């Protein structure tokens, strides 16, 4: 309850800050909207030349694209500003202020800044998802949608875990952004349907570096024969990944040397 009340303060603070820079507020909305358009055009052009890609047809691919937008908008709204600031906090020694507070430093560092402008993109992405599901020619069934929703949350969590694992190395590297570039490179694999990956790359993308689970697997629950098996897999990988994050975070804090970092 205390954490929820604290998060409500974060929201109020973030909205008032976002309105200070009005032009940027709209630029960011436009940027994300353009990202959605670019991806929709990308998949539309591909499907001019094929009926199936990664075992999905165009209607299924639209649901995948919408899920990708939803996961992205959720992470952009809730996490992105915080992840951007994290290396700066460590390198300047400003993390001290978070460590002395009587709340979890990881909670504070990860959720303090809520991107109010991206919140509008979240509504946009949700709208695209509803549209993609409504135009799907066959009935999907509420049972599958009930399983799908928490798996999207798992997808966002996995995105969070691996993006944090990429920036936490600043505790040791003292570089400007840790391994953030590596994360963005790996994230590109998650922006395409998992069905296109084969062999050992596929095994890595659904287990050790589970970028295929952020959007593809939640969508698989809507269309595959065995949704519960997929759901269990995603939940298990999410739990293990989060445990790894906590372990690395604690080790990072031990290596933190305050302002001299």
């Amino acid at each position, binding site marked *: 309850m205390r954490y929820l009340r604290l998060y409500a303060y974060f929201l109020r603070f973030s909205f008032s800050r976002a309105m*200070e*820079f009005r*032009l*940027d507020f709209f*630029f*960011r909305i*436009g*940027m994300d909207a*353009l*990202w959605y358009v*670019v991806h929709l*055009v*990308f998949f539309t*052009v*591909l499907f*001019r*030349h*094929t*009926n*199936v*890609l*990664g*075992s999905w047809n165009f209607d299924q691919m639209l649901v995948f694209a919408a899920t990708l937008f939803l996961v992205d908008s959720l992470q952009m709204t809730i996490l992105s500003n915080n992840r951007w600031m994290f290396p700066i906090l460590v390198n300047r020694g400003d993390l001290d202020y978070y460590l002395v507070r009587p709340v979890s430093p990881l909670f504070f560092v990860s959720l303090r800044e809520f991107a109010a402008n991206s919140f509008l993109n979240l509504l946009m992405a949700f709208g695209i998802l509803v549209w993609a599901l409504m135009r799907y020619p066959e009935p999907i069934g509420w049972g599958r949608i009930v399983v799908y929703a928490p798996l999207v949350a798992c997808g966002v969590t996995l995105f969070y875990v691996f993006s944090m694992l990429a920036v936490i190395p600043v505790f040791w*590297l003292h*570089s400007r952004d840790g*391994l953030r*570039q*590596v994360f963005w*490179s*790996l994230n*590109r*694999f998650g*922006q*395409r349907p998992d*069905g*296109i*990956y*084969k062999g050992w*790359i596929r095994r890595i993308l659904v287990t050790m570096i589970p970028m295929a689970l952020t959007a593809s697997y939640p969508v698989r629950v809507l269309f595959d024969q065995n949704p519960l098996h997929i759901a269990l897999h995603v939940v298990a990988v999410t739990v293990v990944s989060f445990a790894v994050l906590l372990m690395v975070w604690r080790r990072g804090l031990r290596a933190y040397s305050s302002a001299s970092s």
Partner: protein
Amino acid sequence: MSTFAHIVSVEARTRLSYRGAFWFNAAFGFMSDFGVVFFVWTAMFAESGHAEIGGRTLSATINYYLLVALLGRMVRGDRFEGQISADIYEGGLNRYLVFPYSYFRFKYAQRLGQMAPEFLKSVVFGVLAISFVSFESAAFTVGSVIMGLGAVFVANLVFFLIMTIVHQVAFWADNVWSLDVAVWFVASLLGGWMLPLSVFSEPVRAWLEVLPFRFLYDFPVRVLMGEIGAVEWARGIVVVAVWCIALALVSRWVWRRGQRRYTGVGI
């Protein structure tokens, strides 16, 4: 050494100073850029059953993307780090205004310096790629390589001019990062980074022909692959030169308007 060459040299040495992170990020970036499109297009050809898509076989498409990944870095770099918007926000533009040297010539020299490590990456990864990937679909000749490098040079200039205009929006806006990224999304789709332009429909391709974005990736890669002959290359260079002049004029107009708003105290 001229001032321009000196700036290029200083910037290049700065970029190469963080060798570990430089090569680590470069290797991952290259592998993911190329890896994802490899799987997408392998699946596309396998599942569609077509022997050719957009006039290219699978092998030619893979070659196209490999060259986009290699040459694209020389056009765009890791990202645009002209710092023009930062100079405007922080009031750092003041010192350039009193320098006896053109601000944009200085920034362009810096950009060419930033490209030096990108060139090095492209050469190293290019040599590695030749060892593993067959380039039988690309008709490399001495002429196509020379013309291709010329096309890359002007593509880099076009990208610089576009981003120069975008970053000068900082005279009016508090943050142009989103705008910078948005322009990159458009350039990557309409320039041939995400998709070869030949896979678009005929009417869309006609529109893309009149925009400058195709000169960023599609044109240099097709020149290098031997798909564009000397006459068409020369025609393309003339068109892109006209675009450069137009973009430079827009940039100068924005610069003059922006300077009237510039206070020099930062935000």
